[in-house]
C-alpha cells in the first residue's frame, strides 16, 4: 500500500520535529542542564536522519550508522564537559539559571 509506505521523508520529518522541539527547549528553558538535555534531543534528531539515510540510501555502506556512532560519542563527551562546567559555575554563583550569567556583555 504505497500511500502508507514509509519513505525517508517520514523519518526526515520526524527528525525535523524532534530537532525543533529540542531547539524550542534550548531556546526557552532557564535551567542550564535542561538546555543541555534539549541539545541532546537535537543531536538525536540528527542521528535519526543519519540512520534513516543509511538504511535507505546506502544500505551496504553503513556510512550513516558510523557517522551516528561518532555523533553519539561526541555528544556524550560534550555532556560530560558541559556538566562539569555547569557544576563549576554553580559553585561560583549558586545558580544554574542561565539568566543569571550575564557578567560578560556589551
Amino acid at each position: 500500500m504505497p500511500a502508507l509506505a514509509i519513505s525517508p521523508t517520514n523519518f526526515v520529518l520526524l527528525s525535523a520535529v524532534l530537532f525543533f522541539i529540542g531547539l524550542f527547549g534550548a531556546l526557552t528553558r532557564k535551567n542550564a542542564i535542561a538546555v543541555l538535555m534539549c541539545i541532546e534531543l537535537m543531536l538525536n534528531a540528527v542521528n535519526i536522519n543519519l540512520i534513516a539515510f543509511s538504511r535507505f540510501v546506502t544500505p551496504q555502506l553503513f556510512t550513516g550508522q558510523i557517522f551516528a556512532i561518532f555523533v553519539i560519542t561526541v555528544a556524550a563527551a560534550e555532556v560530560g564537559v558541559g556538566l562539569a562546567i555547569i557544576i563549576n559555575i554553580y559553585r561560583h554563583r549558586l545558580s544554574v539559571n542561565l539568566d543569571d550569567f550575564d557578567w560578560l556583555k556589551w
Partner: protein
Amino acid sequence: MYHAWLIPLLPALAFACISLFTKQWKWLSATLSIGAMVSGFIIASFVVAGVLQHPELINHPLVYTIRWLSMPGFIVNVGIQLDPLSAMMLFMVTLIASLIQIYSLGYMRGEKGFSVFFAYMSLFGASMLLLVASANLLELFVAWEGVGVCSYLLIGFYNHKISARQAAKKAFITTRIGDTGLLLGLLALQLIFGTLSISSLSQQIPQYQNIPLLITVAVLFFLGPIGKSGQFPLHVWLPDAMEGPTPVSALIHAATMVIAGVYLVGRVLFMFHSVPPVMELVAWVGGFTAIFAATIAVTQREIKRILAYSTVSQIGYMMMALGVGSLTAGFFHLWTHAFFKALMFLGAGSVLTGLHHKADVWEMGGLIKKMPITAITFVIGGLAIAGIPPFAGFWSKGDILDATLASGHVALFVIGAFTAFLTALYIWRMIFLAFFGKENPENHPKESPAVMTIPLIILAVFATVGGLIGTPWGDLWGRYIHFGTYVAPVANWPLMIGDTLLGALGIFTAWVFYCKDEEKVKAKALAKQFNGLYTLLYNKYYIDEIYMWFNHTMVDGVGRLLYLFDIYVVDGIVNGFGAFTLAAGAGLRVFQTGRLQNYALVFFLGVLAVAVLLAFTGPQATLLLGGVR
C-alpha cells in the same frame, strides 16, 4: 650706454648688501646706498648722451635681453629697452633719487632704522629703475609690484604708528586692486599675442583686428595705472602715503611710484592708441582726477596733504595729456613736475623739521624770515607749478592745454584751464599761509643744515630751467620723445598768455584771501558761507569713508559668513558622519545582552535570514519557491 643694465642693478646690490651685512654701520649703509644711486645717475647721464647721439633709437629702441623663463607657449626674456623715453626716465629718477637720499642724510639723522631706511630707498629706486628700463611687460610688472611693496614698507616705516600701518596697508591693497586688472591684461596679451616683449607687442598690436577684445584688454590694463598713479577712484591711498618719512613722500610723489602709472601708459601708448575709446577714457579719468583733486586740495590744512592732492591732480593732468594722444606733453609735464614736486616736498620736509613736525599750515606763518633758503626754493616751486613763465611748469602745462585743445577736447581744455587756476590758488594759499604773513609765536623754526638745503637748491635750479628744453623755440624734448610722427610745435601766443594769466589770477586770489588781510576773515567767511561744500571738500567727498564701510561691512561680512558656514555646515557634516558611526556602534552593542539564550535566538534568526536569502534570491529561486525541485 650699453651698461644701462647696471643702473637698476647697483641699488639692488646696495639693498642686499645693507640688509644682509652692513645694517649695524649706519653711515656705511648710507654711503653704499647713495653711492649706488649716484653712480647710477652718472651712467644714466651717459645713457642720455648716447641716446641723444642716436636719434634712430626713437623708432628702433635698443633692446638686449636674457632668457628668464621658458616653457612651450610661454617664453619670457627679460632685459633692457633703451629709447629716449626710458633714458629720460632713468636720468630723472636717478637724479631725483640721489638728491632725495642725500637730503635724507640730514632728515633721517638720529632715526632708529636709519640704515634700514636707506636699504628700502635703494630697493625702491632699483625697482623703479627696472620698471623704467624693462623690455618685457612681465618684467615690468615684477618691478611694478616691487615699487608697490617698497612703498608699502616705506609708508609703514614708522611701524609703531597706527596711522602709518593703516596707510601702508591701504596703499598696498588699493594699488593691488588696480594691479589685478593689469595682471588680467597681461594674461590676455600673453594669450592673444603669445609674447609680452614690449617691442614685439608694439609691432603686433597695431595690426590686431579684434577691436572689442583689445578694448577690454586695454581697459583692464588701464586699471593698473589708475591704482598706481592714484587716479580716481583709486586715489585714496596717495594722500595717506605721507605717513612715511617726508623724503619717501617726495620720492613716491615726484619720481617713482605715482609716475609709474603714467610711464606705463606712455610705454604701451601704441595699444591705447589703437583703441580710441580707451584713449577717451584715459583722458577723462585724468581730467576728472585733476580737477577733483584740485578742489579737495583747496581746503586741506596739512602741508603735505595739500601737496599730495596737488600731485594727484597733476598726475591727472599727465593722464589727460596722454589720453588726448600727446606723449610729448604728458611726459614733459611728468619731467618738470618731478622737479618742482620733489622740491616742494623736500621743502615741506625741511619746514616740518624746523617746526618739529607741526604740519598745519594755519599754524605757520612768516617762516621766510627764519628759513630763507627753504622758503625761496619753495616759492620757486610754487611759481613753477602755478605755470608762471619761464619756470618749468609753464612750458609743460602749456603743452598739455595746447595738445588738449588741438585734439579738439574743448571740455577737457576748460577743465584743465580751471584746474590750472585752482592749482595756483591752493599752492599759493599754502605758501602765503606758511611763509608770509605774521609769525606764529609758538614756532621757533631754524634753517635746515646744508645737506638738506643743497638738494633743494639744485632742484630749484631744475625747476626753473628744466622746462627750457621743450620750448617752441628749442624743442629738444619733443624731437626725441613723441608718439607717431613728430610735429614741431608752434608758439601759440594767446594760449601762453592765457595760461600765465590763469596762474597769476590764482596767485592773486590766494594773496587777496590769505596774505593781504592778516586775519583771513574773508577766507573764513567764505568757508562759512559755503559750509556744506567746504566740509564735503575738506572730507575728500567722503570717499575714504565709503570704502571703509564697504571693506568692513561687505568683505569682512562675507568672510565671517563663510567661516561660520565652514565650521557649522561643512564641519558639521563631517562631524555628523563621525557621530552617526559612534551612535551606530553604541546602538548595535545593545544586542549583546550577555544572555546566552538571546544569542542562541539571534543565531537562529540568522539561520532564518540566510534560509530566506538563499531560497528566494538564488538563480534558481523561482523553482525553489514552490519547494519543488
